[in-house]
């Protein structure tokens, strides 16, 4: 299975629930450790309410963040493989 999945980021839809960080970190560490996630959520911006979504260097594009995002803040871009 290709690791080169394309992730679409939509900060406007992110509500800051951190599910992506928790799910991602479990894959890397075998425990829920937000600090170890390859995706980082910060915010909300005090004027727009939007969150900042960053994919860190160690992200291998596995797509687990998109698969479990509850609000569409991160999704698989067109053409990206599903998990």
């Amino acid at each position, binding site marked *: 299975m290709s690791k080169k999945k394309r992730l679409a980021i939509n900060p406007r839809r992110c*509500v*800051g*629930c*951190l599910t992506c960080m928790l*799910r991602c970190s479990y894959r890397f560490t*075998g*425990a829920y450790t937000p600090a170890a996630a390859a995706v*980082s959520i*910060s915010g909300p911006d005090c004027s727009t309410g939007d969150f900042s979504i960053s994919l860190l260097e160690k992200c291998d594009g596995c797509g687990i963040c998109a698969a479990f995002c*509850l609000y569409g803040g991160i999704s698989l871009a067109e053409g990206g493989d599903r998990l």
Partner: protein
Amino acid sequence: MTVPGYAGKILYLDLTTGKTRVEETPREMIDSFIGGGGINTSLARSLVSPDLDPFSPGNPIIIGAGPFAGTVVPGGAKVFISTRLPASGAFARASGGGAFALMMKSCGFDHLVITGRSPSPVYIRIAPGGVELCDATVLWGQDIYDTVDQLKKLHSPCSVIPIGVSGENLVSISITSIDKGGTIGRGGLPAVMGSKNIKALVACQGSTGIKVARHAEYTRIINGLLERMKSWPGRQALQENGMSLQLVEWWGEGHVLTGNGTGVSSPGPEKIEAFRHFAESYRSNRKPLGCPGCPMADKEMVAVTEGPHRGTVCFGNNIRTLPAARADYGRWVKMTEVVNREGLDWFDFRNLVSLCQFLAQRGLLGANDLGGAAIDENDPDCYIELARLTARRVGFGELLAGGLKGLAGRLDPEAGRYVTQIKGHSPVFDPRSSYLGTMEFTQITNPRGAHISFGGSPTYTRGRFMADFERHSRRMGIPAEAWSRIIQGDTFSLGRLSRYSEDWCSLFDCLSLCNRAFVNRFYSIDTITALFNSLTGLDRPAADLMLAAERSWNLWRMINGELGFSRRDDLPPEMWFYPVRSGGRELAFTDYFGREIITPDGMDRILDQYYLERGWDPATGLPCTEKMQLLGLT
């Protein structure tokens, strides 16, 4: 060895000496009280005593996160703070959402126990392996939003529980917000923090991982829950409308009692039209915010983008609207922002303002008491002015700062009967405008005072058929042997059902699970047991978990019994027994079905049933020796 689902440690901090110690989270506490609000109560047992008033340095502040916090359990994000509160004098279990529980556990701690008093203002920074007391001199005097913003700039990623000016000034109707969003601690938690010179609690992101005993099984249960939650039609409505509008959908516009329960506001065409305008502005200017792992995102950020209040932004989950004047969106958002920034509990604050206006109009409160302040409970600018006076205890604000108990103590008996309170707290639901379900009744029996977090049951919504009760009883873990005592033909025993309703919600507290109706409704005792066991590997039967929830509730009641609380404090407000009239219709205090008027004697009978089902002495309203022995609390 750390039990999966737990961070594994409890940190004790003495603010007077600055000394700390760290202990393992005892396995016997996990077995007896599970975690979260349950273990908080257990930790308090040796620390709370009648000679320690809420502002004594020895009054503990105990912060707890249960096993579901810091994981991806939907709704498993709650943090619990237990302390003796000034509004009621009772030992309370307060809860709130946001990321604080997740962050605290990521630093390695399930619980933090704070005693003593710092010699100068500090904020407590919870970091991996320990805490740091940081100088908060420059933050003292700042409001809740500004304090959060400054601390987030310094310590992000983190979660912040600040106090506002009202907390610094020991205002008994103070409240705070976690990361500006989820409220916690009505009844003066910020005042207790202020008395200890704590400006804020900051939980930083650490590197402790929360392990799962049987991950495949655990994930399968959670994914099944999420599928059900995401496909629930109410979820989309909640996302689009927010709590403020959705509550109107759920409960209807109907007749709304005024703040102090002495009058009524009825819907009319002009008000419905005004509300429509309000709703349009609100919908287009809100951004949903969610607690960790929650698919419901009932928190929000609301902005004003035009008009004189352009640029105003407030957080939370309900814009403080009054049915009488909801047309001016910008003014009401502004008022909500100011009340939130000052850190005042809206329910108590609104009740007090409305009550004082009512008393002043009847000459029961004099001009000297009001200090020249003009009161108009339908004017947002009035609330803004009074919020600022109250937070600073200036003029009339000094009277409001003392809360409902304080006001009642200054009135003669004729005026005192109009004070709508239960143990110093304003009830949130008045059964005359709704009905007497468990949500309404447990406001009376809650050890903390009137609160609405513990009444979930089939009576949450009106008009349930009795056939629903057995299904919900199974879901809530009510033992089959109790059904015959609860369900009585075409009606039910409210007192007996309420015991299990409280225990069900107590279980949520022990786990750090949110018990809002739109989360609670997806959980059954079987789901929770399977989830707990796959997470922790402890493999406990469902009845064992329910017993732990009951044990923590009984211990909570016992602690308050030692503080002097008893059946005589489980009193509904006198005003509930007086009907209010609206448009030719009488709104009276009736049972759930609206069939019978509830009299004081009738209320006594409901309370008798409640105490009997709990195994408590109906004379004192406190656990009997046999019950304490059964629960291992002697």
